[in-house]
């Protein structure tokens, strides 16, 4: 038990993203308001982005920008040590993921504006009630 606990403390960044993901997923499933669900969706997506960023992190490493590269023409002049730079690949993937999340957000907001035009409410149970009324 103690070992398991230490394990968790060692990797606190990993479990932080789990907490955030749970918050986001909970909001998406349980909340009744469409905009709240969208906020939950974004929290969920950022949690996954946090996970990827944590993958890329290296202890005692610097930003993924090669230092002193200005004006260097032959690569031999630069001695690059891989351990000195943070892994750039997860960052690249997550840039794409952020873009995807904002695009989804735009479409989803447009849809919720359309839903509001139709039903004059954003609460899911009220919308369901309207649908039931109109189909009777």
């Amino acid at each position, binding site marked *: 038990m103690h070992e398991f606990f230490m394990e968790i403390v060692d990797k*606190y960044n990993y479990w*932080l993203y789990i*907490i*955030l993901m749970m*918050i*986001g997923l*909970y*909001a998406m499933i349980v*909340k*009744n*308001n469409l*905009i*709240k669900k*969208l*906020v*939950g969706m*974004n*929290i969920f997506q*950022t949690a996954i*982005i*946090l996970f990827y*960023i*944590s993958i*890329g*992190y290296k202890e005692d*490493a*610097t*930003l*993924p*920008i090669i230092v002193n590269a200005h004006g260097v023409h032959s690569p031999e002049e630069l001695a690059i040590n891989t351990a000195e730079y*943070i892994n750039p690949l*997860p*960052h690249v993937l*997550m*840039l794409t993921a*952020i*873009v995807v999340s*904002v695009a989804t*957000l*735009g479409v989803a*907001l447009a849809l*919720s*504006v359309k839903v*509001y035009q139709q039903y004059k*409410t*954003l*609460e899911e149970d009220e919308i369901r009630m309207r649908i039931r009324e109109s189909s009777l």
Partner: protein
Amino acid sequence: MNWLIDLFILTLVIVCAIAAISVRDLLSTAILFGAYSFMMCLLWAIMGAVDVAFTEASVGAGVSTVFFVAAVFRTTRRTKD
């Protein structure tokens, strides 16, 4: 010292996330979501992901929040939960 800042921001992120989904006013939700994104951006900057943090600062804290505010403006602030 570094981990203190880290811990502070981590707490703020979680607090903002919970607040954003539990406050009973959609405009506040939008603004709290902006705060959440900004805290997240700081967290990533600490982890060395400057490009991602930059994007999140402009997209998450900036444009997304504005989209939310615009949508709330066109719909309603009312929410039951």
